[in-house]
């Protein structure tokens, strides 16, 4: 024991997933008696870092010390043994069981053998509830509980083991404001009792409200650690999105984009249709508008049937997309930034013609290219070959051999040639059109998807996080192809909608910049066209 030292010290933690480096030498110190906020953009490595601490993911390199002693955290059990309790972003509860049974799971008491020590756990939970004020009916099944109550169960489950360190991954994402306040009071009281509490949150103001210290991660590294009173929202946003030096390093790519944008941007202001303008419903849109949304709303879906929008929340939660209006014009890239889960998914599906809005009108071209965010499940059929995968986009296209309906032969000869052409043109590293998509690396898979969707696009292409998980070279390739596509000269130029949680990408490519927050689309004014400005909008600041 080293009294006064940090309870947890993680240093130089490295963790890779295949070719992606999620943590690249990250560090984190948790002091006894503090609430520690962990901030960062999507993919900065926050959840990965905490999962390393919770024993869910072993680190590839780096050390973890608890009370000054190096420890090995290979399994959640190791973490428990060292007094680390974890509350996960996605609940790990058994829904058909009662709350009490869930709490008793894995809780072994000597003399009980294989039976659940329900009575012993009930007594302990009651005492714990007295102390913490975490109210949940122990007899109800988890399936009957709302998300807030489920989270209280998760927290009770963690506290039941008397952890010295409590780690919470985005606990507020599913909570109503009052529940969030109650949770924060609890965290403060736990810290006052001498525990170390680590908390990941997307919302800056929440972290500032509860944390004693804050650590900021960016691209898998720890870039900033400060006491609450020594920092402010601006400093944290700068740290999250990159300081001045980092921005100038990335600027070479962005500058090319901006120069190009200057040519592309037509001299007409205002993309959101002006409600005062005399556009009677049903009147045809101006010729250069390739897609138009008018007051589009989409409810959250509870399951994955029919469409791909996933939603954990049903019922009382607000709609995924609220009253969104947007015109996409020829030769323009409409960039949409936002923190994941703010309606971008639904917006992408509506624009791509994959999802019908619940309210409002969506006018989109019949043949819209769509680069979905998950190439492995949505973009490609991994177990089919490359020709099959190209055919996905063309199987209903009319051909010389028959109409594109229910009957008809697949034009395999044409498709095989088209696939070989795509492979050559977009430098897809494959032995041939007969390769299975699974055999390709992630970057090459994405090149195939991008090439296919550019080919199928007539007037509109919707790209959703098109460079997620790609290395620098493949990212540059995708960006160049998008620019070339939108600047097409051999006919009427198409429009592109780029939806991305990567701020650099959106800033570099977009003619018009929007932010999705809480299901609403907000146009970013010119003075906000910076990482800091857009970052603040994404976190809920007023435009």
């Amino acid at each position, binding site marked *: 024991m080293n009294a006064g030292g940090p309870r947890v010290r993680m240093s130089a933690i490295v963790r890779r997933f295949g070719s992606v480096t999620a943590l690249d030498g990250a560090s984190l110190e948790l002091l006894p008696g503090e609430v520690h906020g962990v901030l960062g953009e999507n993919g900065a490595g926050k959840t990965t870092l905490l999962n390393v601490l919770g024993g869910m993911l072993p680190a590839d390199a780096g050390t973890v010390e608890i009370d000054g002693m190096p420890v090995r955290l290979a399994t959640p059990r190791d973490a428990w043994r060292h007094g680390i309790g974890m509350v996960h972003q996605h609940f790990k509860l058994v829904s058909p069981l009662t709350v009490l049974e869930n709490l008793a799971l894995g809780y*072994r008491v000597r003399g009980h053998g294989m039976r659940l020590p329900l009575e012993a756990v009930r007594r302990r939970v009651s005492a714990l509830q007295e102390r913490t004020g975490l109210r949940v009916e122990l007899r109800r099944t988890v399936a009957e509980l709302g998300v807030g109550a489920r989270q209280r169960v998760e927290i009770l489950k963690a506290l039941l*083991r008397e952890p010295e360190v409590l780690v919470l991954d985005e606990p507020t994402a599913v909570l109503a404001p009052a529940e969030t306040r109650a949770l924060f009071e609890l965290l403060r009281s736990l810290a006052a009792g001498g525990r170390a509490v680590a908390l990941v949150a997307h919302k800056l103001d929440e972290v500032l409200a509860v944390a004693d210290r804050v650590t900021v991660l960016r691209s898998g590294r720890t870039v900033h650690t400060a006491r609450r009173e020594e920092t402010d929202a601006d400093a944290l946003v700068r740290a999250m999105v990159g300081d001045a030096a980092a921005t100038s390093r990335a600027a070479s790519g962005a500058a090319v984009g901006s120069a190009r944008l200057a040519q592309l941007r037509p001299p007409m202001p205002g993309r959101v249709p002006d409600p005062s303008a005399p556009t009677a419903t049903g009147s045809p849109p101006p010729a250069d508008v390739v897609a138009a949304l008018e007051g589009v709303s989409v409810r959250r879906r509870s399951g994955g049937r029919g469409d791909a929008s996933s939603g954990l929340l049903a019922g009382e939660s607000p709609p995924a997309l609220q009253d969104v209006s947007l015109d996409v014009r020829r030769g323009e890239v409409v960039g949409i930034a936002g923190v994941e889960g703010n309606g971008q998914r639904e917006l992408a599906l509506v624009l791509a013609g994959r999802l019908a809005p619940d309210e409002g009108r969506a006018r989109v071209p019949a043949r819209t290219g769509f680069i979905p965010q998950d190439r492995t499940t949505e973009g490609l059929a991994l177990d*089919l070959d490359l020709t099959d995968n190209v055919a996905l986009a063309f199987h209903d296209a009319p051909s010389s051999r028959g109409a594109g309906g229910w*009957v008809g032969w697949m034009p395999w000869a044409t498709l095989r040639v088209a696939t070989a052409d795509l492979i050559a043109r977009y430098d897809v590293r494959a032995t041939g059109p007969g390769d299975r998509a699974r055999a390709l690396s992630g970057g090459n898979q994405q090149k195939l998807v991008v090439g296919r969707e550019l080919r199928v696009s007539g007037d509109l292409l919707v790209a959703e996080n098109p460079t997620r998980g790609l290395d620098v070279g493949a990212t540059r390739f995708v960006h160049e192809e998008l620019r070339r596509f939108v600047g097409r000269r051999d006919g009427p130029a198409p429009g592109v909608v780029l939806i991305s949680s990567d701020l650099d990408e959106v800033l570099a490519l977009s003619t018009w910049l929007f932010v999705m927050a809480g299901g609403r689309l907000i146009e970013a004014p010119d003075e906000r066209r910076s990482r800091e400005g857009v970052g603040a909008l994404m976190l809920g600041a007023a435009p």
Partner: protein
Amino acid sequence: MRDGPGDRAPLGGRPRAPRARRIAPLLTAAGAVTLTALAASLALAVGGHDPGRVASALIGGAFGSPEILLSVTLVRSVPLILTGLAVVLAFRAGVWNIGAEGQVDAGAIAGTTVGLHAGGLPPLLLVPAVLVAAALGGLGWALVPALMRLRLGVGEVITTILMNFVALNLAAYMVRGPLQEGRGVFPQTDAIADAARLGVMVPGTRLHWGFAIAVILAVGVSVLLHRTRTGFRIRAVGTAPLAAAISGRIDADGVAFRTFLASGALAGVAGGVEVAGVTFALYEGLSPGWGYTAIAVALLAGLSPLGVLATGILFGALEGGAGAMQRVASVPAAWVGVVQALVILAVLALDRVRRHGLGALTVPSAVVVAPAQGDGSVG
């Protein structure tokens, strides 16, 4: 296993997969047969039988002469090929139809009903009428689980299995009630009209035209899957439903639903063909479990429709030779069921090894159960 990468239609037009991938399912099938033979020989030897003698009795009973081959093995292979095709079609669409058995019964009931009551028609009309009725019967039997999957999201594995028992008992009721023979003695129907019967295909044998129907349908399913737009959609939905919906803009639920019904229709035809070609009447227990054996037939074929022709004949030979095996080598005919089960296990194991390497066969590491810290600290 679901995508059967190597079973491209051999009819040209479709790009051929690389050689290694084309022969992989063949290797799996050959390996599975070898493994099964080894395991079965071992078990027979332990039981005091001479594996060589048992094998020669079995082979002799299945392939001993051209007459045996045509009248026994091929005749028995017909329902296995047809139900095997039904399973292949469903599995390729990601529909786990375990209900071919009940769909056979439903098809047999419907086909028999038409064959009994439409005797006035000429054979050229009546035989197709029997088969169409059988197809509709199987389709109708698949409709219930298919609708439950489409509308309610109920998994089809359980519902199709349960529908099998309903069909079994429906057939038992029909042959004791509405369709019972005129004499009212045995639980079976009268013989169907002569004009409703499938003729003999090779004179002097019992091989009926149902075998030709099975071959034509196998080729048809192969062409459908690999050459047509509908077939492409089925394969895409079966292997990657989300990609089919998002990137292919395919109505994945609808494709699965329609393929489910088509699978039921194919199984129904199996029942109709058996009545019109072999038994000429419906009785209780018409199918000795073809709908279940069909799963082994389909898996061993790597879900290839043309492969089903081969594996259907192989399983037909097993059943055909079972009688001779029992007579000559005193091994109970039920042993064939053991062999069929061994084949399924071997195919599944080899397929997993082929995909994931030998490591796939190791036991998963133990699940984390309890925190050491909690031990004894409570109560």
